[in-house]
């Protein structure tokens, strides 16, 4: 069923148009997150923590309690909030720079501690807000502002695979998945599972979303779709850990 509204009820309508660039995959993902919040009926108990980077452009997107955190610190702030108010549904939203570089330690430790929060991480293969520099997730040979000849294995190693890194250290209560912003229904289901895992009090939930960045990739609509699909060949879209008994 197509949702009745073209804009999720949990979005702040008066703040539209939102701040993301034309064709940004993050805004697609956040729209789907909005529908997930609507469907689960959790708008009044959701706490949304956003990181620094393009992810912060979502600070006025949702009509829910929102915290703007510092570089890479969306995870620990979300964990702190969850401890203070366990009945809240705490979402931490960040990019690949925030989650896999400057905030990687928090991500790993939250996963090891099995903190009962839901982390959503956007992977668009570059540092987008600052002008498209190389990120941990930049593909080999991908040209960015700081790798004009392409990312070289000898210099920078392999692109970081987040869910693959977290799965071995996660508990059996964790839900860990990778999805893609273009796939409305797939991503909606993934978000709902990741949030339900927290609501049911089970454990850590993590979703990486492959996402388009047309402005920094310098691609038009079709080329952006092609590139994100190429990313999906390198970063497989699947569920890495599903706890037993998780509702969808």
């Amino acid at each position, binding site marked *: 069923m*197509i949702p009745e509204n073209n*804009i999720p009820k949990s979005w702040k309508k008066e703040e539209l148009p939102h701040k993301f*660039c034309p*064709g940004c995959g993050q805004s697609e993902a956040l729209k789907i997150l909005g529908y997930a919040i609507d469907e689960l009926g959790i708008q009044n108990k959701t706490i949304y923590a956003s990181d620094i980077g*393009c992810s912060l*452009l979502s600070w006025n997107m949702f009509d829910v309690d929102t915290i703007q955190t510092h570089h890479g610190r969306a995870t620990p702030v979300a964990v702190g909030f969850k401890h203070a108010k366990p009945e809240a549904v705490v979402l931490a939203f960040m990019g690949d720079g925030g989650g896999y570089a400057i905030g990687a330690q928090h991500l790993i430790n939250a996963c090891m501690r099995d903190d009962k929060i839901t982390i959503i991480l956007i992977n668009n293969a570059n540092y987008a807000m600052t002008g498209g520099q190389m990120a941990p997730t930049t593909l080999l040979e991908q040209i960015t502002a700081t790798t004009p000849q392409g990312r070289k294995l000898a210099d920078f190693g392999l692109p970081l695979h987040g869910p693959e890194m977290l799965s071995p250290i996660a508990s059996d209560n964790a839900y860990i998945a990778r999805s893609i912003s*273009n796939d*409305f229904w797939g991503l909606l289901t993934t978000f709902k599972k990741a949030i339900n895992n927290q609501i049911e009090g089970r454990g850590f939930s993590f979703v990486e979303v492959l996402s388009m960045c*047309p402005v920094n990739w310098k691609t*038009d609509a079709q080329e952006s779709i092609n590139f994100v699909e190429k990313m999906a060949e390198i970063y497989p879209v699947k569920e890495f850990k599903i706890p037993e008994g998780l509702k969808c």
Partner: protein
Amino acid sequence: MLSEAKSAPSGMKILISGEGGQGVQIISEVIAKTAHKIGKNTSYMPQFGVEQRGGASVAFLQIADKKIIYPKFSKANIVLVMSNRSIDAVKQYLNQETLFIFDSTNIDNEHLNQIRNEVTKVLNINAREWALKNLSTKVTNMIFLGALLQYLPDIKVEDIKNVLSDKLINSKNAELIDMDFRAIDYGYNIAREENNNLNGQETKEIENISQDDNKTWQRYPKFCKSCELCIVRCPVKALSFSNELNYLGTQLPQIDINKCTACGLCQLICPDGAIKVTKKN
């Protein structure tokens, strides 16, 4: 009005504002470089919001014979706005002496109302409509550049074109340079015909654009950013760009309702929530 603006004794203070991506910084940079080349004292300072992306993009530009002490200023001789939201960013720099340049095909009356009592000198240009009809909305900023030159008598249109072609020398698109030049000429000429009518567009949030017995397809010009995703992803190729403009002054999608199967994909994937598809029973 023209002569007054031209003879500002302490040099020209120009403030240009638009959405990120509308080309505010390019035209400011080209004017600054040209002014420097002809021996003027010049300062150009870009300013973005707290974030680099997503806010109004503002440029402070000064051209003077005297030394320029500080790159910012409190009131501008000329304020040029390219989008509705940028009016918020420039409001405080207006006074009764400021020449306010805007595009009547792109700015809403609702936003103009905020400054209606503050400005007396106005230049109203139909930049986007003309660009869309004759060249491409990509070169709208060049029309504004041309219009500004009318108020900077020391800078010749030819000087500007030389600096611009140096800048674009590596551009893959030779056609673009030609379009830029034509847009500059148009802007320069249109600014001579004074049009000081402070009227913009009426705000339309939703357009009930198309329907038949089985379905309705609506679009939201206030939200659409012309990303083209709906157009490339529609499985039956029912969507294409139209000649109507959204709030950024770029093209809105339009529908061929006979082809549309009301699958709803465009509504689902539009990152800005700018489409609504309804099936009727």
